[in-house]
C-alpha cells in the first residue's frame, strides 16, 4: 500500500520506446511505479520519416520490426501484470513528436531510456532526442540510463 503522505509521482506517463535494449527495462520500471498510484501508461514508438517522403506515407504500419517494438512493450507490461497502451507515430523528428504526444496525452511524466552502446568501444551517446525532450517537455522527464555491462566496466 502506498503511503498517503507520499507525493504522487505521476498519473499518466508516456513511455518512449526506441526499439533498443532499454525498452523492456523502462517499461518494467514504469509499470512498477505506476502500480502504486494506478497511473496510466502509454507506450509511444516514433518512426522518423525523412523529407523525401510524405509524412503520411504508409511506412511504420507495414514494418514488422516496428510492430515488434510495441508487441515487446505490451508483453513486458503483461509480465508485470500491468496494462500499457501502445501508440505508433510517424514524425520528422522524434524529440518533437514525443513532446507533442506528451502534451496531447496530458501526461505528467515522460520516460526515456538511454541504452549503452556496445559498438565503437562502448559509451552512452545522448544524441539529440533526450536534450530536446529535457528542454521542451511540459511535464517531468525521467531518463533511465542502462547500467554499464560488467565486461565493459
Amino acid at each position, binding site marked *: 500500500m502506498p503511503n498517503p503522505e507520499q507525493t504522487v509521482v505521476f498519473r499518466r506517463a508516456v513511455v518512449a520506446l526506441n526499439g533498443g535494449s532499454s525498452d523492456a527495462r523502462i517499461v518494467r520500471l514504469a509499470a512498477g511505479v505506476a502500480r502504486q498510484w494506478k497511473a496510466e501508461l502509454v507506450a509511444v514508438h516514433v518512426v522518423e520519416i*525523412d*523529407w*523525401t*517522403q*510524405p*509524412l503520411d506515407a504508409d511506412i511504420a504500419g507495414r514494418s514488422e520490426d516496428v510492430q515488434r517494438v510495441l508487441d515487446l512493450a505490451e508483453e513486458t507490461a503483461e509480465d508485470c501484470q500491468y496494462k500499457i497502451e501502445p501508440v505508433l507515430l510517424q*514524425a*520528422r*523528428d522524434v*524529440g*518533437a513528436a514525443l513532446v507533442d504526444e506528451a502534451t496531447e496525452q496530458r501526461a505528467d511524466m515522460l520516460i526515456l531510456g538511454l541504452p549503452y552502446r556496445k559498438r565503437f568501444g562502448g559509451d552512452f551517446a545522448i544524441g539529440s532526442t533526450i536534450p530536446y525532450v529535457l528542454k521542451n517537455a511540459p511535464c517531468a522527464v525521467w531518463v533511465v540510463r542502462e547500467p554499464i555491462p560488467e565486461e565493459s566496466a
Partner: protein
Amino acid sequence: MFVLVVGGGKVGYYLAKELVESGHEVVLMEKDHARADQIADEIGSIVIAHDGCEGKYLAEAGANRADIVAAVTGDDEDNLVICQMAKHHFDVPRTIARVNNPKNEELFKHLGVDELISPTRMILGSIEQDIPVHELLHLGSLGGSDLELIEAPLLPGSSRSRRAVRSSRSSARDVRSRSGRTRSSPKATRSSRSAARSARRRSTASSSGTPSRSADALAVCGRGVAFALAERT
C-alpha cells in the same frame, strides 16, 4: 502543397512561418547552424541545417517531391543555382527566386526561373510613383512582355485635357509627342486587354477620362493626366 524554402533570413523565416500557419508542408534550409537552431526553436522541426546549393542536401530536403522551391537567400548566385538544380535536376514544377540585384533579372529569366521577386525593383517602382523624377511615371510592368504602364501629365491647353478620348491612336500620339520616348508597338496588342483593364480601374479612380483601345497602342486620358502602354526602355 509541399514548399521548400532555401534561406533562413528574415524573408525565409517569415515565409516559412506564414506557410506553416496556412497549413502547408514546409521545409526550410539554412546553412548557418545557429540560425537554423533558432528558427527550429521558433517554428518547429522543419529546418535542415545544410547548404541548399548542394544537390545532395536538396535531395535530402525532399526536392524531388516539392511543388515549389523558393530560393530567398541574400545571394543572387546561390538563388540561381538552387532554382536551376530544382528545375532541371529535380523537376520541380515551380521555382521562385529572390533577385537582389535588378541587373540579374534577365539572366534569371533566361535560365528558366519561373518567378522572380525583386525587392529592389519593387521599391524603385514605388519611389518613382510617389516622386515624379521623370516626366513619365512608371506605374507597373506587364509580366512576360517588354511593356510597362506609364503615366504622363498633359500640357496645359492639350486638346486631350478634360476630354473624352475617342481615338486612342491620337491619344497615344499625344503622349508620344511630349517625350519622344514612348513608342507604340505591335507587341502592345497582345497585352492590351489586361492593360486596358488595369488602366480602366486606375482611370476610374483618379479621373473621369474615358479609356479606349486600338490595335497598336493603348492610352487613357483623364483630367490632366494620360496613361499609356509603352515599350520598356
